[in-house]
């Protein structure tokens, strides 16, 4: 029996300490998924911790048929998609106010005034790029965003994504294409120009 299996077995008997140790192994991945999905650190923490609480309550049903992280990730996907569905009205009205770039300060960049100007410039550039990326994700529908994250960050196959999100392979491909297009558009990588060029040229070169 591996250490993880031992921790799972103990957690199934109500051992919270064992569950905390188990959570430590995956908390960063779950948090990252929540952060990229919500684009807001506070919501990411709330939702990722909700995922852990749900996992703790349901860990008795885990029978090891799939990997623990696979089981946990499905809980996360369901939690995030359901949360977005519930809060979509509020979030739509507030999403303009939640901009990662607007919150940037030197402290947040992990820098001080004593840092070389070059370092400050690089850090600021990264933050601005991150802001652009998040704005691109913000314009996607929640399910499209989730599909992109599951494919690009989690490395899941189309079939796995299809089971996790209840989407067809065609829908998944469209979502991925749309996401990449949005990213290119916000990062100034000629996404729209390329598409316009293609349309004008009849799609033939």
């Amino acid at each position, binding site marked *: 029996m591996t250490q993880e299996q031992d921790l799972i077995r103990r957690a*199934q008997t*109500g051992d919270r300490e064992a569950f905390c140790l188990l959570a430590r192994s995956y908390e960063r991945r779950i948090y990252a998924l929540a952060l990229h999905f919500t684009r807001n650190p506070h919501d990411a923490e709330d939702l990722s911790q909700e995922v*852990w609480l749900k996992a703790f309550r349901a860990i*008795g049903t885990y029978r090891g048929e799939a990997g623990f992280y696979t089981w946990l990730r499905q809980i996360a996907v369901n939690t995030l998609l359901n949360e977005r569905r519930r809060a979509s009205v509020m979030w739509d009205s507030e999403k303009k106010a939640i901009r990662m770039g607007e919150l940037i300060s030197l402290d947040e960049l992990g820098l001080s005034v004593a840092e070389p100007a070059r370092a400050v410039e690089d850090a600021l550039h*990264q933050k601005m*790029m991150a802001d652009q*990326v998040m704005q691109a994700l913000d314009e996607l529908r929640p399910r499209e965003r989730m599909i992109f994250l599951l494919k690009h*960050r989690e490395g899941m196959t189309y079939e796995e994504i299809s089971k996790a999100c209840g989407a067809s392979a065609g829908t998944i491909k469209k979502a991925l294409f749309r996401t990449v297009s949005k990213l290119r558009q916000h990062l100034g990588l000629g996404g729209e120009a390329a598409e316009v*060029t293609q349309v004008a040229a009849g799609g033939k*070169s």
Partner: protein
Amino acid sequence: MHDCRKTEAQLIELVFDEAAGAQSLPAEIAGCPACLAQYQAMMTALRAFDQAAETLQPDESYWAGYEARLRAKLAEAPPPMRERFAGWLAAVFAKPLIPVAVTAALLLLIAASFIWQSRQRGTSGEPVIVSVTPSPQPVQTPSAPESIVVQQTPQSEIRPKRSPSAAPHSRRLPAVREPERRIGITAPDNLMAAAASEPVLPALAPERHFERAQLLLRAFRNSRFDEGTDAPDLAYEKRKSRELIYDNILLRREAAAKGNLPVEDVLSSLEPLLLDIANLPDKPAPEAVQAIRARVQKTEIVATLQIYSSGATRPGDLNQ
């Protein structure tokens, strides 16, 4: 002819496929500057996303607080046992290994067992009928704190050719106090249990019962009053009489059920005597003792019992 639109789907496959690299690009895409530019722009967008994702990751110091907050929330969360049990139940009923037929059979078995037990309880709960031959001088024991009712069996039900003197009637008798056995005559459950717990089962040794009854009556008949006291010491006789009553009831019912009238007659005659002896007060009046002795003498029951206990009845008379 190369169609850039048709390569869009292929580009997505390439971009999200880890194995895809610049050197493994299909010649169709590598040979088309527009498609190649698309591909490179897509890859750049994804790298930008990865960089942004890294940038947005919280500082290392964040995780200690995160874990502490999670620990606090978990402390308030209910234990997962309920969900575990629910999951187990769901698994049991979802598994095709336990077919519905087996579950239904188990349920039927439990129900049948329950019904059978209920019927058994109902049977043992029937009132015990004790035939009582009217004694010429009923025993009066007003000092007894508890009293019981012994209902006489209607003679017409089991013995049509019965003397008119044995007319059915009910008699109120004092309770039999016996702490070690805790048996009352009107408590049928206790009575049957006590009969079942007897070391010598009456159905197995009727001769032995007759012998014991004979010895008891002889002892009772020959008991003497202590000098200087009015009351004889009949503790032994009372105790033995109580023990024999239960055997007698069972044997009589069995004999009646099997139509063994001679044996039933003897047992019916014996029963009221045993009851009267068992229900004598601790300090019986000499008149009460004399009355029972007179009945023993008059009915010649001792002689009859001697005949039966010697094997005059065929072995298995009670079991025929």
